[in-house]
C-alpha cells in the first residue's frame, strides 16, 4: 500500500481516486471499533485536535468529537458562541493563539470559502475542512460515499441524482467531485436560479426533478439554505415543494431499492416530504455511524503516520 501523501484535507477535488479509496477502505476497517464493548483505541494517544467551528453545526462537530475520542486524541472544541470570535478577533489571531497550544490538527468549519486554505498557509497544524462557505465539505461526501458503497456494493456506474440548492451547497460540490472521480453517473437538478454557472462541466444539469430521479440508485437531497437566501431565488416554499421537492410519487420513479440521502437538517415539506424522509429508503442513521468512521479514517491517515518511507 502506498503512503497517504496529503498533510491536510481541504477538499475532495485534489484527491485522486486512489486516495478516496484509501480513506473509504480505512473507514470500513475502523467502523468495527464502534461496535466494540469499549469504543476506544489508543491509536492517536497524545495527539491534540482543535475543532474550530465558526458556524453552528451539531452533527458534524459531534461526529468529529466522537471520532477523536474513539481514537484517544485529546480534543477541544471552540464555537462562535463560546470563543473570542465574537469579540472581533481575526481568524488568523484565533488560529495563532490555538497554535501556541501546539495542536496536531485543526478541524475548521467556516462560512467563508477558502478559510481552511488560509489556515493551511499560515499554521503549522494539519488542517481538515469541516465545511467552508459554498466550497467543499469533504467528510460529508466521504460519508455519503461510504454509505452508498456499503448499501450498493460499489460506486462505479451508480446513477445518483443530486437535487436542491446547488448554488450554495458545499455538499454538492464535494459529492460531485467524489462521485464522478469514482465513476458514478451524477445528474444535478435545481431551479435555474439555484444552479451555479459552469457546474455542467462536472455533471449534467436538469430542471425537471422527475427526469433527475428517473431510474436513480440514489437521490441526495440538498437543504434549501434559507439563511443564505438573499433575494428571491424561488417564489415560495409551496411552489418549490410542488415543482422541485421530493415527494413519494417522485421517489417512486427511481429504482425500487433507491437510497435517499440528506445531509440534514431537513426542511420537511420544502425539499423533502416527510413520508420520504421517514420512509424505508432513508439511510440517515447509517450516515451518522459512517460519519464517525470516515472522520476516524481522516484523523488516522493524517495523524497516524509520518511521511517517512519504510526501509
Amino acid at each position: 500500500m502506498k503512503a497517504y501523501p496529503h498533510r491536510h484535507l481541504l477538499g475532495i477535488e485534489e484527491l485522486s481516486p486512489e486516495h478516496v479509496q484509501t480513506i473509504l477502505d480505512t473507514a470500513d476497517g475502523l467502523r468495527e471499533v464502534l461496535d466494540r464493548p469499549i469504543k476506544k483505541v489508543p491509536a492517536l494517544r497524545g495527539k491534540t485536535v482543535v475543532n474550530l467551528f465558526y458556524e453552528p453545526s451539531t452533527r458534524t462537530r459531534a461526529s468529529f468529537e466522537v471520532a477523536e475520542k474513539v481514537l484517544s486524541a485529546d480534543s477541544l472544541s471552540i464555537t462562535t458562541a463560546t470563543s473570542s470570535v465574537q469579540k472581533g478577533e481575526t481568524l488568523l489571531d484565533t488560529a495563532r493563539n490555538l497554535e501556541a497550544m501546539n495542536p496536531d490538527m485543526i478541524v475548521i468549519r467556516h462560512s467563508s470559502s477558502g478559510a481552511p486554505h488560509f489556515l493551511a498557509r499560515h499554521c503549522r497544524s494539519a488542517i481538515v475542512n469541516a465545511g467552508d462557505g459554498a466550497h467543499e465539505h469533504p467528510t460529508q461526501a466521504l460519508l455519503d460515499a461510504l454509505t452508498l458503497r456499503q448499501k450498493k456494493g460499489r460506486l462505479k456506474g451508480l446513477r445518483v441524482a443530486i437535487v436542491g440548492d446547488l448554488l450554495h451547497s458545499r455538499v454538492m460540490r464535494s459529492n460531485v467531485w467524489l462521485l464522478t472521480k469514482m465513476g458514478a453517473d451524477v445528474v444535478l437538478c435545481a431551479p435555474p436560479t439555484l444552479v451555479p454557472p459552469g457546474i455542467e462541466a462536472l455533471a449534467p444539469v436538469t430542471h425537471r426533478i422527475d427526469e433527475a430521479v428517473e431510474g436513480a440508485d440514489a437521490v441526495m437531497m440538498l437543504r434549501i439554505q434559507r439563511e443564505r437566501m438573499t433575494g428571491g431565488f424561488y417564489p415560495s416554499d409551496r411552489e418549490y415543494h410542488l415543482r422541485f421537492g421530493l415527494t413519494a410519487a417522485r421517489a417512486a420513479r427511481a429504482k425500487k431499492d433507491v437510497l435517499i440521502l440528506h445531509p440534514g437538517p431537513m426542511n420537511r415539506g420544502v425539499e423533502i416530504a416527510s413520508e420520504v424522509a421517514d420512509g424505508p429508503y432513508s439511510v440517515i442513521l447509517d450516515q451518522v455511524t459512517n460519519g464517525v468512521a470516515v472522520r476516524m479514517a481522516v484523523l488516522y491517515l493524517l495523524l497516524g503516520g509520518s511521511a517517512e518511507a519504510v526501509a
Partner: protein
Amino acid sequence: MKERVLLKGGRVVDPSQGIDEPLDVLLDSGVVEALGKASAKGAEVIDVSGLVVCPGFIDLHVHLREPGREDKETIATGTRAAAAGGFTAVCAMPNTEPVNDQAGITRFILDRARAEGAVRVYPIGAITKGSMGEEIAEYGDLREAGCVAVSDDGRPVASARVFRRALEYAKAFDLTVIDHCEEPTLAQGASMNEGPVATLLGLRGNPSAGEAMIVERDVLLADLTGGKVHVAHLSTALGAEAVRRGKARGVRVTAEATPHHMLLTDSLVKESGYDTSTKMNPPLRSESDREALLEALRDGTVDCIATDHAPHAVDDKKCEYDLAAFGIVGLETAVALCLDRLVGAGVVDLPRLVALLSTNPARVLGLPGGTLAPGSPADVTVLDLARKVKVDPARFESRGRNSPFGGWSLKGGPAMTLVGGRVVFTA
C-alpha cells in the same frame, strides 16, 4: 542638480511626434529645450546610451489613500512608488476619507503633493457628494482647485439620471467623467468573476454582463448629452465591445485597462489557493475576456494603460477571501509587466506602449506632458529594455504589499524617472 540636463545617447521614443530614433534630449528650467544635437554647454550630462527615453508616463488611476487612510498609503509613499515605477504623474482617485468632493480637500492633496510628492499629482474630484451617487458635486470649485476629472471610483453611479446630469454639468468645466462600470445589484456580495472557477471555489461571482451594461449605458448617455466619459479599468470582452461601438459612432468615450486584467485570469484565484492578492474590483476575468482586452489594446479601443494602484494594510488582506479588501498595488510593477508581457510578447510595439502610458493618458484628460516636444514639461521616463526585474513586494516604495506578481521575473523596466527636469528615481 543643474537646471540644464542633457540625456545623451539614448533612443527617443515619442509617439506624440512620431519619433523613434537615437537623439539627445536637452532639458532646461523644467521644460524640454531641444531634441537632437544640442549644445551641452553648462548642462549636466547623463549618459543614457542603450536606454530608451520617453515622455513621462502618466497613470490615470491611482489610490493614494491620503487623506484618511495613511496606514495604507500616503501621498509621499505613493508618489515615491510612482517614481520607482517610471511614472512622472499620477491621477489621484477621490475615494479618500473624506471623499475629495470639495475644493478644500483638493487643495489639501495638492499642498501635500507639492511638499512631499516625488511626482506630479492630479486630483480627481467626486462625481457626487460623498460619492453617494445622489447629488452631483461642485465641479466648478473642484476644477478651479485643480481637479482634472471627476469619478466615484470604487463604486458605480447607480442612477442613470444622476450620471446623465453629471455628464451634462461636467461639460461646463470641460471635465471628463470617469466611471467605475458595474451594475451594483448584480455584483452584490461578489468577491471574484462569475463563472466556472467561482463555482468550484464556492465564491459569489460578479458577472461580466454587469460591467458591460453600465458601459453601454454610459456610452448611450455620453451620446445623449455630448459629455465625455472615460471607462475605468475595462475588464470584459462585452465592455470592450461597447466602447468600440461607441467610438465608431463618434461618441466621446475613452477607456483604460490595467496590466493585471490583461495578464491574469480568474483561474489564478484557484491556483493560488484563495490568495487575497488576486482579489480586486473589477475582478480578474476569464481567458476569453483577457484575450478580448488585448485585442482592444491592439485596435485602439483601449486608449491607455492605468494601474488602479490600490494599496492596503496587511490586515485588510490577511484574512478570509470574501472578507478581504479589493485591490492590488500596481505602480511599481506596471511598466516592467508591460515591457515583458506586452512588448516582449509582441502584443504591441514599444511606440504604441509609450502612447498607452504617456501620450494617450495626457490627451484623455487634457493633462500637460505626454510629449517631448520642445516647450513641454521636462517629465521623462527612461527605460532599460534589458534590465532584469524580479518582483519583490517587500521592497516596494509603496506601503502596500498586496501584489499577485510577487516572484515574477521580468525583462525590462524603468531605469530613471525625471520630473520637471529633476531626477526622482534611478534604478
